């Protein structure tokens, strides 16, 4: 592939071994996908995972002297201080989190610890070339905003942050962003939760770029977050289009670039009901409620606060969000309302982390199929319902 003199210098080690390693990996990725050249990025988001491989790679780059040219925002691990004081974490868990946090700080990341960077702190514009990992964020910035990123891995987006470049291939190119599968939604889409179930129909939708028709023309921000997050839980979709809603699909012709769809998939109420039944634990007593996969917005926090105001929860409730949203919730009195009812709102924390050991083997309720999917490995079981039903269940201690 073609490299500029500056890029050749990076590869040759003129900027140090760390930059050379990052560029070497990116050239290999570029050559795999027949990229012709590198292009500059102006934003990056790294899905820090606080897993051993994550730390190993950041420390490897650090030892080789790497530093980010484009400071990336990062995903959450867990809130170390809160969890050390209030939850059961091992010293090994604490050490991993501490080292991960330090490594990302040292390499020049912006420590947002949030999986919804596109709402605050790192919002790209239409057409901007960026490098985002966190697969639900990738879907949002491509689909809803119209920025351009591939479905990056944690490591490829970190390399991009270091070199300030990405190989030009895939979803950076207009021809690959066009729709290929028409998804004709005949189901009744009533609320944000229905977008979760629709996203979880990925198996029926199949491989390609989906173009949804038949959806309401004024979806909430939360609905669009949900759709992208669930599409990328059991499937792999860097981008989706909703005709009349998302910017690259103002008309159906525009969405498909004037071509015919490769196939059409019809989604009915039965499909949504079947998805919900297949992924949800059977109804009954619950021990806890978990919200915020992806991180909850202030609107969702407010909705919960309104429902629990002046009441007592019968089960544990955790609402995970960004520290900026937490700060807003504090200021608006929502945190106080939720805590008075016995719930918790916790920032900088992800559901797929070792801080949730006390919930192992227990049954919870959540509005997010993604939350249920990723925590199966940790022995958590979930009944999956819409947000209002989840909150009702937490007040009663059961889903009936």
């Amino acid at each position, binding site marked *: 592939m073609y490299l500029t003199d500056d890029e050749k210098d990076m590869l040759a080690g003129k900027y140090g071994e760390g930059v050379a390693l990052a560029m070497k*990996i990116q050239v*290999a*990725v570029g*050559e*795999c*996908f027949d990229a012709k050249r590198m292009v500059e990025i102006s934003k990056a988001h790294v*899905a*820090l*995972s606080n*897993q*051993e*491989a*994550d730390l*190993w*790679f950041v420390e490897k780059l650090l030892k080789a002297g790497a530093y980010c040219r484009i400071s990336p925002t990062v*995903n959450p691990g867990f809130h170390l201080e809160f969890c050390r004081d209030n939850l059961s974490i091992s010293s090994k868990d604490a050490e991993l989190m501490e080292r991960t946090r330090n490594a990302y700080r040292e390499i020049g990341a912006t420590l947002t610890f949030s999986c919804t960077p596109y709402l605050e702190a790192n919002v790209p514009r239409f057409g901007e070339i960026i490098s985002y*990992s*966190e*697969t639900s964020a*990738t879907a949002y910035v491509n689909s809803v905003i119209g920025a351009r990123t*591939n*479905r*990056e*891995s*944690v*490591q*490829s*987006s970190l*390399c991009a942050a270091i070199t300030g470049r990405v190989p030009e291939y*895939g979803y950076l190119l207009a021809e690959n962003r066009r729709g290929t599968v028409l998804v004709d939604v005949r189901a009744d889409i009533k609320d944000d939760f229905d977008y979760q179930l629709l996203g979880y129909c990925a198996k029926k939708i199949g491989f390609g770029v989906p173009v949804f028709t038949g959806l309401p023309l004024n979806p909430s921000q939360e609905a669009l977050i949900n759709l992208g997050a669930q599409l*990328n*839980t059991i499937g*792999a979709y860097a981008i989706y289009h909703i005709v009349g809603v998302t910017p690259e699909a103002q008309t159906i012709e525009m969405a498909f670039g004037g071509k015919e769809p490769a196939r059409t998939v019809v989604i009915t109420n039965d499909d949504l009901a079947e998805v919900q039944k297949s992924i949800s634990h059977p109804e009954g007593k619950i021990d806890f409620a978990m919200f915020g996969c992806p991180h909850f917005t202030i609107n969702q926090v407010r909705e919960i606060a309104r429902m629990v105001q002046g009441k007592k929860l019968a089960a544990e409730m955790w609402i995970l969000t960004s520290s900026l949203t937490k700060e807003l919730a504090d200021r608006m009195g929502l945190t106080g309302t939720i805590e008075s009812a016995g719930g918790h709102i916790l920032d900088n924390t992800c559901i797929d982390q070792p801080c949730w050991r006390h919930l192992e083997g227990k049954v919870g309720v959540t509005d997010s199929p993604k939350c249920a999917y990723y925590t199966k*490995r940790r022995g958590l079981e979930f009944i999956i319902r819409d947000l209002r039903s989840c909150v009702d269940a937490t007040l009663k201690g059961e889903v009936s």
Partner: protein
Amino acid sequence: MKERSFTFTCHKISEGKAEGRVLISKDDILFYLCNPETGQIIEEGHALEGQSVAGKILVFPAGKGSSSVQVDGLYQLLTRNNAPKAMIIERPDTILVTSAIIMEIPLVDRVEKEFYQRVEDGDYLCVDADKGIITITKQEKIL
């Protein structure tokens, strides 16, 4: 018993050369859903559920899963000597590609169609990603 060899061309993604017994999956693979201690695939309903990828030349259509878990799955296998020795795929994605490059596991794609008709579980394979060549060695009974 007589040995017969067949050679096919492929396209390098992650450099290196490795040889070993082949294991073929018709399903996509997420290495996060492997038991790191044994290399066994633990994903319910997977075509290779219960079989070990350790030390194998793994043939599968594509990787799957979100941006962080694939690499950690491979890392956990690799640090216990239970990673596959090389991987042969049909559809590359950025996440599996960077995972293989970083973990220095040879990875190739764009293999000649005839390879897929010829290869069977248990065949001995040599994957030379740098030269873009895969060799199948079969044990055949002399009639």
